[in-house]
């Protein structure tokens, strides 16, 4: 029987530890800010405007394709867990074939993205 409360406990202890060390260091460290210290470090250049501006679109496509493959991996997990059970019931080849179709359709997508040059960083 899984005890999910443990997950919550780990999360709480992790956050509590992080806050504790931050407070501890806040209590003992020096605090002498100056205008120059508080500038962003951009190789000694005086920063020019803030950083919140448009970046290149190239990054976005990787995230898009990633979402698709993430969902695909999730579909494979329950199948992977049950494959041995299906084999025991004599349905192994059937289960295997089903997943092969699933993967094949997604490989078509991967090839499409590849041909379109999406997977190229430029």
């Amino acid at each position: 029987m899984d005890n999910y409360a443990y997950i919550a406990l780990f999360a709480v202890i992790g956050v509590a530890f992080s806050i504790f060390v931050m407070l501890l260091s806040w209590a003992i460290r020096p605090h002498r800010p100056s205008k120059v210290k508080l500038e962003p470090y951009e190789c000694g250049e005086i920063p020019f405007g803030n950083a919140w501006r448009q970046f290149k679109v190239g990054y976005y496509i990787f995230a898009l394709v990633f979402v698709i493959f993430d969902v695909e991996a999730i579909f494979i997990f329950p199948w992977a867990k049950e494959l041995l059970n299906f084999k025991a019931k004599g349905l192994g080849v059937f289960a295997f074939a089903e997943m092969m179709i699933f993967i094949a359709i997604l490989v078509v997508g991967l090839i499409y993205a590849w041909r379109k040059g999406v997977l190229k960083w430029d």
Partner: protein
Amino acid sequence: MQITLTGIIRLVFERLHIPANWVAPTVMLVASVIVLFFILFVVLYLIYGLRKIMGWIQARIGPNRVGPYGLAQTIADALKLLAKEDIMPAMADKWPFIIAPIIVFVPAYMVYLVIPFGKGGSWVAQDLSIGVLYISAILSIPIIGIITAGWASNNKWSLLGSFRAAAQLVSYEVPLALAMIPPVMLAGSMSLQGIVHAQQGVWFGIFPKWFLATQILGFAIYMMAALAESNLIPFDIMEAESELVAGFNTEYSGMKFALFFLAEFAGMFTVSAIAATLFLGGWLPIHPALSFIPPVFWFLGKTLVLIFVLMWIRSTLPRVRVDQLMSFGWKVLIPLALLNIVWTGAVVLFFPR
């Protein structure tokens, strides 16, 4: 009788006349804190080990001044970080800047919930039945923290570094997850203890039935994706000093920086421990005749060997270019990982265990 944490706490509570229903929560609390201290200890000595090993490989000595053989060096470093002034840039986005290291560190710690250090229930905090999927899910959270760190710093280098880091992590998360699937198929279980148990026994009285036997490709894919996920050379694009100053944590100092550092090295142990569990039989001995050595030593031994390999690679190889990095992940690792799943399916179907 074996001495377990539950046994000790139950005994103490009986002596002190504390109600018995307090035992279970206390065990959980104590176990979580033990895991936390284990991580802190491991990280301190991984950093020391990395500096020593890199020193030897590069014909240097490495840390040798603080304590015997420099063993107290990283403790001194940690105390120094604790006492360092913590600078938050004036233009930073205040509260996201503070919570970003927490978002990165907490998942790195939460993964240890399912890592089996030894045989039975007392060597793993909670062996979840969705173990492998839990690991994938938890390891996907730090990306948010990294983007938050870059964004909140309001520094162009940090932001660029954080989005590069996110693109890299996202790209290598898929092959990592796909490489963790074959052991699940072979074991018919997603719990890490279940996967270890499925690797018991030997072939021809000598070869251990580890999943590595059929998963040499899977192991290679996993280790390469793990190198990228834990941001080690040759895949440390996200903090390429010559290109991005120091990446997403350029503006971080003091304890906030230490949390990023802690998460990075805790992650190095995590990926090695998971590789040892999924492919190298976890806490199982290499041969049943050697089972007089306690399981936990087998587990730590295998993990440390893998960590050494990671450090070795890190100190000998140059860094890849960012475009090579991305195309290697998508055009080599993902197709190979899918192929490996097909191969493993055939193994499961046509080879008797």
